[in-house]
């Protein structure tokens, strides 16, 4: 009755019977003596018959072939998961079995992996110009949620301001973090209006809402709608004047051409690292939290923190989780720890580290400029089509809002037409942001050549002018 499954070396009669006899059991049933019979499952599991590897490869490969991909189609969707170029080197490194399958280990036995994690934090720190960078959390939204709770713990206050232009999905994640223990209290998340011309935060509205109850002012640059926030300095000032923390959300791939929010006063910076060498994977996410290296902030991180340190050999460096921080997390203090901590997306931080070292000192600027130029080219060409308007357009990074309100077809119909042409049109914004008209959010990055953009423009022209 042994299956001889290739992944289970002991699934043989020989191994099983030798072990059973060593443990003094006559059959495996005996091993479950702790479980009362009434709790045993005695039915047949209704699962399909097992497949061999060759069958599985054909079966699963065949199923997945039914998907359409952003490789065989020309994709302009972004909205929090962007199609950037992933240098093949990133793949090679994280596919290595040492990294792919590693466990927790010890700082000595897994020194290389720990060093790679440290280099992730170190390089991200250079982009952000911040000295304290935590190990990753699940997503940008989670990072923002945790940061908001850090601000609550730092200030004791319960109101959080976020931009109205925030991704509704991100906001929904944050909402789930707004409960506070003992049931009665909760963080309230309020939105601050954005300028309908530029997409930037409405500073007057901000000043009005920001008060001595404000735990944190959270803003994003680029925003969900792609626009760059030029009022970073003022936002931080307003927050600080009210005694609130200033939290900024940022897409780190912009940081070759844009300042880190930290240089304009943000206390905590969060964001995603997906653009830094991680494939979209149908929705890959990764969040980071960073701050100045000040003890009051550091002790509030809900993430694990890794530090470079000495070893027993003079002059040698090692890398380890900071023990007290581990203790301060939920691993140590359970419900009294900082929020909760668990397995996250650590493997991907190694791809991030590789990505940042490939781009290095000059690559982020080169890449950033290319993205800005190509995306603005797309915006300008699209806006030249009759009935098509690009909103919030003065300065954006890679994403922009295309409004089809004045076109004879809807944004959704445009997408249908594009799909038939092998093009994935922008993410529809109509339901989420009705004030922007019948709009879609288009994303243009370094993977889009001029020819790709021209192809899009031709296809949109065709359907709009038909």
């Amino acid at each position, binding site marked *: 009755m042994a299956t001889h499954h290739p*992944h289970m070396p002991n699934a043989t009669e020989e191994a099983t019977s030798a072990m059973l006899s060593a443990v003094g059991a006559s059959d495996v049933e005996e091993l479950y003596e702790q479980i009362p019979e009434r709790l045993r499952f005695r039915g047949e599991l209704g699962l399909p018959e097992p497949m061999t590897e060759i069958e599985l490869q054909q079966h699963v490969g065949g199923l997945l072939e*039914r998907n359409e991909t952003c490789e065989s189609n020309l994709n302009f969707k972004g909205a929090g998961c962007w199609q950037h170029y992933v240098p093949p080197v990133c793949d090679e490194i994280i596919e290595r079995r040492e990294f792919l399958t590693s466990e927790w*280990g010890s700082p000595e036995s897994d020194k290389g992996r720990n060093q790679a994690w440290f280099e992730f934090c170190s390089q991200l*720190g250079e982009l952000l110009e911040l000295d304290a960078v935590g190990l990753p959390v699940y997503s940008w939204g989670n990072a923002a949620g945790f940061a908001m709770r850090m601000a609550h713990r730092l200030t004791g206050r319960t109101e959080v301001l976020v931009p109205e232009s925030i991704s509704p999905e991100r906001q929904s*994640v944050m909402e789930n973090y707004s409960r506070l223990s003992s049931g009665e209290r909760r963080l309230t998340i309020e939105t601050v209006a954005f300028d309908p011309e530029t997409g930037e935060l409405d500073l007057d509205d901000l000043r009005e809402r920001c008060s001595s109850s404000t735990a944190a002012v959270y803003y994003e640059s680029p925003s969900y709608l792609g626009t760059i926030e030029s009022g970073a300095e003022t936002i931080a000032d307003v927050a600080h004047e009210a005694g609130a923390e200033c939290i900024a959300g940022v897409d780190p791939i912009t940081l070759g051409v844009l300042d880190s929010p930290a240089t304009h006063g943000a206390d905590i910076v969060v964001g995603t690292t997906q653009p830094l060498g991680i494939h979209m994977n149908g929705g890959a996410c990764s969040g980071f939290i960073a701050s100045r290296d000040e003890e009051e902030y550091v002790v509030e991180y809900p993430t694990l923190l890794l530090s470079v340190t000495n*070893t027993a050999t003079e002059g040698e460096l090692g890398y380890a989780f900071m023990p007290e921080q581990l203790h301060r997390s*939920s691993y140590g203090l*359970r419900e009294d720890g900082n929020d909760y901590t668990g397995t996250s997306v650590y493997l991907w931080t190694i791809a991030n580290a590789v990505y940042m070292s490939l781009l290095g000192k000059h690559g982020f600027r080169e890449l950033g400029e290319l993205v800005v130029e190509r995306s603005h080219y797309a915006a300008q060409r699209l806006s030249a089509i009759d009935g098509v308007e690009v909103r919030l357009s003065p300065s954006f990074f890679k994403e922009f809002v295309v409004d089809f309100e004045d076109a004879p077809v809807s944004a959704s119909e445009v997408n249908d037409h594009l799909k038939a042409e092998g093009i994935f049109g922008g993410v529809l914004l109509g339901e989420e942001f009705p004030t922007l008209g019948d709009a879609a959010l288009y994303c243009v990055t370094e993977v889009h050549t001029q020819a790709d953009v021209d192809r899009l423009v031709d296809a949109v022209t065709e359907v709009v002018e038909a």
Partner: protein
Amino acid sequence: WDEPSIMEMGAAGRRGITFPEAESAVRDTVGSAADYLPDAVAREDDPALPEVAEPFVVRHYLHLAQETLGFTNISMWGTCTMKYAPTMNEQLEKRHLSNLHPRQDDDTLQGMLEIAHELDGYLQELSGMDRFSFQPASGTQSAFVFTSLLRKYLEDRGELDQRTEIVTTLYSHACLPATADVAGFDVVTLQPGENSYPSTEALEAAVSEKTAALMIVNPNDLGVYNPNVDEWVDIVHDAGGLCFYDQANFNSTMGISRARDVGFDASHYMLHKTFGNPKGGLGPAAGAFGCREELVEYLPTPLVEYDEADDHYSLDYDRPNSVGKVREFWGNLPLVMKAYVWVRSMGAEGIVEASNLSVLGNNYLETLLEDVPGLAKTVENVTQRRMEMTRYSWGELFEDTGVSTVDIRRRLTDFGIDAYWMSHDPWTYDEPFTPEPGEMHSKENIETYAEALRRIAEEAYDDPERVKTAPHNQSIDRVDEERIDDPDQWAMTWRAYQRKFGDHED
């Protein structure tokens, strides 16, 4: 290798990658990027990143990989169900999933949606639950889905103000009380009874009209199964609470016992670990959260739906009672796909055998460790066979020799064996450790593991310094972890390190 930090590598002018300039028509149309970057926030100085040529980046991270023992040999890290990561899965992921966008139209995702829908069905079969969500990004986040859902459920019933307590046990994973707290509940932790699980009376005493839910693990990390678990569920149900089953330790009960049959309202499974996805250090991960029909409306959005008439799969976003989101998008799709592959590769018979072999392997290891000097099994009064792991204590050895479980753990890596899992906090037994052979390790591996522990224990008695100064065969010497609790000494980034110690270095 005496591998330097990437931050110290390279030289001016070297490039790891270059990007093309924008096409001339683009430049002619838009001018230069600078025109679109507001002066107030346009970056002037380049970030202080290294300048390293591509081959040297590769070589550097290759060396770091080589300096990683990881799971390249025996690893019996308890609670994590170390499994083989099939190469085929990584190939399928890269080939088919890397270029999917989460907001593509449903009809461009039919293959992936079918896989998710089928996996949902398999999990229903394995758990008895009625529906699964794959949105949680980890096991811990699955617990958070439960506590978020619980709020919504209580709100709908008007009981949120009344039911403020979540009951758990000390030997349940820390993520249960932690996520209870984050969702705003008060935590009641039952202390272990003599069998390591609390007595049913203790539970009865803790449960009241304030009880929102019970959240527990079973078997616990000590390998002990609470045989009264169904009574527990009844007690909580009778009091009006819900019951959540953390099945992180599912590897011993797959096909052996089902969460819903026991009476639980919700449960979760780790698609990483248990369902064959590699650990990746600490993720990417994926939790599968399942619940019974009455709670389905609260699950995170979207859910995968199948229309049999049209043979069409879709993502349902229109779910007004949903708790919303715990993570952007709808799940870690590569892990969902690989979990599907795992089930299809194993089949029912293989999955049951994996449980059998996990439990058998652990009992075999116990037999081999029986007379290792200074070692004791914990909860000795539970004489029944343990499940897939067993907690041991080196307490006697520590008293005899001063060698701690941390020392032994380090020494173990000198044998090419991964460090072991000790215990979750708090340590209720002295100098604990918790191995889990799982179904992937061979009988010979288990023997090698036991033999290594025996040799180290003997060494501790013969030459304790040798063990205390371990490791001796790793790429670096023993790491000073204490120092980095000091804010003046910790350095989470190279820039912090340079700032704090730069003078000493140059």
